[in-house]
């Protein structure tokens, strides 16, 4: 990440004329200013959605899971679809913060903070679905292994559903720690320039007494690097384990070995789309175009076209294996019921949103177009939602026994619950955008001199000189 010298040919990661103080000013002043009208409108809408969600959840808990349109045939519907979808959304955050840190990708610094926040909020939304799907939610602690008074009855450590419990809670905890440990130095920056007593108090508490001591920075760097090293396999494991929920079963359309990599790619795909959706809005509202540049958006679009194509290959592989495997049930599921059956429309929405439309990102004009990116980011998220829906519902609605064939459409509390998680997600994100440094201030400062536009412009003439001097020396030697 911290290169000693970066060529001026490379696109700058920080636009405009900046010095260290200007970086602080640009990123922290929105925290100190009153939020704009758009913020209030957005926050209010989010709260309304959250309220509707809370009501839907109350309805389900009060009357029981029967108010959902699940039955013996389709035991998983909206709930698990939304769970897998939200968990997937979270993955881009960890990918940007951890994997790109290990790969020394400087462009992550502009977007990592918001992406990590997105991860935390998305996992919070995801976790609720399996919990409320349990029905008697107050018995939720049964899923935890602990010595209890009901005799030595333990959870089943062989079950992928229990692996989920461990995977999701570990993922949430580690992401939270990673995010917060990165926030501590930036909270200290907010604290030290605070004008009001309340801000000094709150950010003083939040910054844990950070001073910026060299020894502390040394440990902090070590901590971030190891947490990144831990999160990288973690993020792959989480969605792999989520895919095991399906892959270890014997349902046609589910028990395939391609699921772990296919789910991970899909998760990164939808996660980057959501990061794009959020960052395009955030950079506009908070005026952070200099830090979240077109270059950043283009880099994310490249990841989207890559992972979208990986997902596309996975779909085709599934179709091929369903035919090549010569199992009639598999063949029927994939061809008769998934691509052509009564729920076939969802399959084609998935195909067109995930495989066909992202291909526009092969063209750099499209990758660098904000409007195209924004629309695409939403299309991709719709597509990825349908992917989970297709996997779950089109495998369940036609099983081995034709007498139990059914059709699935959600009831209002199911939709309400889903809408409610949007409310929760955006409520959290609006609060984050108002009260937290949306961009990692310290990290931007550490790459400013190598990747900032104003510094690069100054280096340009030296670089030209170097070339001339080099050419001169070279000629001399021969």
């Amino acid at each position, binding site marked *: 990440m911290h290169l000693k010298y970066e060529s001026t040919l490379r696109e700058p990661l920080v636009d405009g004329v900046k010095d*260290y*103080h200007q970086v602080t000013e640009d990123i922290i002043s929105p925290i100190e200013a009153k939020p704009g009208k758009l913020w209030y409108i957005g926050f209010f809408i989010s709260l309304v959605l959250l309220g509707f969600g809370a009501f839907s959840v109350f309805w389900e808990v009060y009357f029981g899971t029967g108010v959902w349109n699940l039955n013996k045939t389709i035991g998983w519907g909206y709930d698990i679809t939304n769970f897998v979808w939200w968990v997937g959304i979270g993955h881009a955050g960890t990918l940007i913060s951890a994997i790109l840190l290990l790969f020394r990708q400087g462009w992550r610094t502009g977007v990592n903070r918001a992406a990590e926040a997105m991860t935390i909020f998305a996992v919070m939304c995801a976790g609720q679905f399996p919990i409320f799907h349990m029905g008697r939610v107050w018995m939720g602690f049964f899923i935890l292994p602990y010595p209890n008074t009901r005799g030595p009855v333990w959870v089943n450590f062989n079950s992928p559903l229990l*692996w989920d419990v461990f995977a999701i809670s*570990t993922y949430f905890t580690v992401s939270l720690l990673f995010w917060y440990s990165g926030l501590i130095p930036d909270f200290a920056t907010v604290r030290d320039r605070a004008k009001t007593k309340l801000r000094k108090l709150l950010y003083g508490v939040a910054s844990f007494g950070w001073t910026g001591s*060299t020894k502390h920075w*040394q440990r902090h760097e070590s901590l971030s690097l190891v947490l990144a090293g831990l999160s990288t396999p973690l993020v792959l494991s989480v969605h792999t384990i989520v895919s095991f929920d399906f892959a270890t079963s014997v349902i046609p359309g589910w028990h395939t070995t391609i699921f772990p990599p296919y789910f991970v790619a899909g998760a990164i795909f939808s996660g980057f789309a959501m990061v794009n959706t959020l960052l395009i809005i955030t950079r506009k509202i908070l005026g952070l175009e200099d830090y979240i540049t077109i270059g950043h958006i283009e880099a994310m679009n490249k990841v989207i076209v890559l992972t979208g194509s990986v997902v596309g290959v996975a779909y085709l592989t599934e179709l091929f294996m369903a035919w090549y495997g010569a199992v009639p049930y598999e063949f029927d599921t994939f061809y008769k019921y998934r691509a052509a059956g009564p729920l076939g429309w969802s399959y084609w929405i998935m195909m067109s949103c995930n495989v066909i439309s992202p291909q526009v990102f092969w063209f750099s004009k499209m990758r660098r177009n904000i409007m195209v990116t924004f629309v695409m980011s939403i299309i991709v998220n719709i597509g990825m939602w349908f992917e989970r829906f297709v996997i779950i519902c089109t495998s369940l609605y036609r099983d081995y026994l034709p007498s139990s064939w059914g059709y699935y459409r959600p009831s209002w509390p199911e939709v309400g619950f889903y809408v409610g998680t949007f409310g929760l997600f955006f409520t959290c994100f609006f609060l984050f955008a108002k009260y937290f440094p949306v961009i990692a201030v310290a990290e931007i400062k*550490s790459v400013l001199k190598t990747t900032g536009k104003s510094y690069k412009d100054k280096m340009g003439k030296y670089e030209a000189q170097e070339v001339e001097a080099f050419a001169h020396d070279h000629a001399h030697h021969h």
Partner: protein
Amino acid sequence: MAVKKFVVGSFDDEAVLFPAVKKVRAAGYKLHDVYTPFPVHGLDHAMGLRETSLHTAGFVYGITGTTTALSVMGWVFTTDWPMNIGGKPHFPLPAFIPITFELTVLFAAVGMVLTFCYLCQLAPFVKKHIFHPRQTDDLFVMAIEVTGKNGAAELKEFLSSVGAKEVNEQTAETGWWLGRYDQESRLYSEPVTVKA
């Protein structure tokens, strides 16, 4: 913790800071600490700080997680309640791998963060002396302890000569105390005694 006397110099560029740090060490002054708004790579080496062993601690925590997961699951399924689940073996190692991995990561991450906070004395309501309000913004602040050997005037002159933009003298608590940044007062009462 003792209250000590410091001469504080602030630098506005890390390129000036590095040679200054080297000169402080060469002159044999007691360099208390350098505060920077972002991690300046190599500064720890320039100051002669030892490499952190936080990652070693992380490894130990990780191993603890691995053994905890394997031993608990093994004990539960073979000794405490050996249940027959679909005719599967009582110690199915492949099925135990996901949880073992997750606990390894969980123990390592949580343990490391707690150790980090402990070593750096970071916690909510911990308050430390801030030598310059802009040390978390854009200044690189060096604090040299005033000892019997060298007087404040000498240190001030020295810091200006190595490129410090702003030099002053401060008495400060070197450690941490429980307090709030919006209040000047400390929550515990300790007689303020200035050491040399």
